[in-house]
C-alpha cells in the first residue's frame, strides 16, 4: 500500500535540547496513527516539522512521495487541527467565518453547511467562535480542517476544556472519518484508552521513537503500556 508519509532519520536540535533524535517511520493510506509520549517528547516539534512550520531539521520528510522541502503542494491535501487554536476572545468571526477561512475555493460554500451538520455545530454557525466551549471550538476547527476534503488529518489533541460528552463525540467523529471516509489520521493523544479503541497504529515518542507498530502489538506489551500510561498520567496531572 502507498505510503502517505515517510519520515527518515528526522533530527531536530534546539540550542539546549535535542527535540527529535533520529526518528524514522512511515504512515500508510488509511492508517489511524496514535502518537503518544510525555510532555516535551517532541510531538509538537514533529508536527511543526511535518507541517512546514519548522524547517530547521536534519533528515527527510516526504508526503505522497515528495520531499516537503521541494514543494508545499502537499499542504493542500492536509487538514490540521491545532492543540490550542489561539485567537482573540473577542475576534469578530462566527463559526461559519472560521470554517470558511479553511475553504480554498469560494465555490464550495455548500460544503460548509454539510460539514457543520456532520459535526453537530450547525446550530452554532452564527455564534462567535469565542463564545463556544472548548469541545465545540475543537469541532469547529475539525470542520475547518475537513472543508477541503483532505486525504490526511493531523490532530494535536487539546488537554483542557473538553468535557466528557464532547470527548466521546470527538472520538466517534474521528472513527467515522477514518472508517467511512477513509481519511488517514495522525493524532497525538494523552488518552491511552482512547488510542486503544480508535487507532490501528501507535507511535511512542520521547525524543527518539521507542515504538512504532500496530496498536495490538503495543497494547500486548505490558511493560510499554505501563511506562506510557505513567508518563501520560504525570502529564495529565501537570496540566491540571
Amino acid at each position: 500500500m502507498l505510503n502517505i508519509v515517510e519520515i527518515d532519520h528526522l533530527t531536530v536540535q534546539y540550542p539546549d535540547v535535542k527535540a527529535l533524535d533520529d526518528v524514522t517511520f512511515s504512515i500508510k493510506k488509511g492508517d489511524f496513527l496514535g502518537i503518544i509520549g510525555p510532555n516535551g517528547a517532541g510531538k509538537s516539534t514533529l508536527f511543526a516539522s511535518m507541517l512546514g512550520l519548522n524547517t530547521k531539521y536534519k533528515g527527510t520528510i516526504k508526503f505522497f512521495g515528495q520531499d516537503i522541502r521541494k514543494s508545499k503542494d502537499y499542504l493542500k491535501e492536509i487538514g490540521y487541527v491545532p492543540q490550542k487554536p489561539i485567537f482573540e476572545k473577542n475576534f469578530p468571526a462566527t463559526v461559519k467565518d472560521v470554517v470558511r477561512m479553511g475553504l480554498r475555493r469560494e465555490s464550495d460554500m455548500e460544503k460548509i453547511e454539510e460539514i457543520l451538520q456532520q459535526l453537530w455545530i450547525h446550530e452554532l454557525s452564527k455564534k462567535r467562535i469565542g463564545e463556544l466551549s472548548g469541545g465545540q471550538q475543537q469541532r469547529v476547527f475539525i470542520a475547518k480542517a475537513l472543508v477541503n476534503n483532505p486525504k490526511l488529518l493531523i490532530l494535536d489533541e487539546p488537554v483542557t476544556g473538553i468535557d466528557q460528552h464532547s470527548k466521546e463525540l470527538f472520538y466517534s467523529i474521528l472513527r467515522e472519518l477514518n472508517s467511512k471516509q477513509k481519511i488517514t489520521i495522525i493524532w497525538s493523544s494523552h488518552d491511552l484508552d482512547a488510542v486503544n479503541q480508535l487507532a490501528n497504529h501507535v507511535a511512542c515518542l520521547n525524543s527518539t521513537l521507542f515504538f512504532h507498530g500496530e496498536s495490538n502489538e503495543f497494547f500486548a506489551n505490558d511493560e510499554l503500556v505501563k511506562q506510557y500510561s505513567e508518563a501520560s498520567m504525570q502529564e495529565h496531572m501537570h496540566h491540571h
Partner: protein
Amino acid sequence: MTLEILTFSFMHRALISGVAIAILCSIIGLFLVLRRYSLFGDAIAHSSFGGIALGLMAGVYPLWTAYGVSLISALIITRIKEKYNISGDASVAVLLSSGIAVGLVIIGISGGFTIDIFSFLFGSILLVSVNDTILILSLTGIILIVVLLLYRQLLYSTFNEEQAKVSGIPVEKINYLIVFMAGLTVVTSIQLVGVLLISALFVIPNVTAIMYGKGFKVTAILSMSFSIFSVVIGILVSYIFDITPAGTIVLLSIGLFGGTIGVKSIGLLSEN
C-alpha cells in the same frame, strides 16, 4: 444655511473624500486592531510628519514625500520587528518618535514654516482639491479591490498566523501587504483629520463595532457605518458652527463608542 452648504463644490469634495477615507480607515483599521497593532496607524502618521517637513523644505508637494517616508519606515519597522523579535508596541514607539524628531529637526533647519505644517497636523478637509479627491477615490478603490480579492488570506492570517501558514497562505507577504496598505491609507487620510488624530479613525469605529458581537462582515459594515456617520456629520456640524472638523469627527466617533458602552452596560447587547 444648513441646506445651502450642500451646494458648495468644496463641500462636495470634502464629503466625497471624507466618506472614502472613512471606509478605507475602518477596513484597514479593523485588521490592525485585531492584530493588536492599533497604534501602528499613529506611528506611520507621525513618521509621515517627517516626510511632510522634508517636502515643504524641498519645495515638493508634501504628501508625495509623506507617502515615500511613511511606506519606507513602515516596511523597515516591520522587517526589524520580525528579524530582531521586538514587540509590536516598542517598534511602534520607535517609529513614532523618529518621525516627529526628523520633522522637528528639518523644520528647525528651514527656519520654521508654521501655517502649512498646521494644516497637516490637524487636517484640512474643506481645502481638498479636485486632484486630491481623485487621488483619494482611486486609492480607496484600489485598496478595497485588493482587500476583497485577498479577503480570506487577510482574515485568516489575522485570525491565526500559524494555521494560515499550514493552509498554504503566504503569511509574511500578507503582513507586508497590510502594513503597506496601512501606510497608503494613513497618508491619504492626513487631509481629513491630520497627523495627530488619525489613529482615532483606525481604532474607535472598529472597537465600537466589535462590541456588537457579530461576525466579520457585519462588524466591518458596522464600523464603516459609524465611521461614515462621524465624518459626514462632523464635517457639516463643524462648518455650521465654525469649529475644527478633525476634532468634531473624532468626538462624534467617541460619542458612538460611549453610546455603545452605555447600551451594553444596561444589557441591551449580548455579552461577548
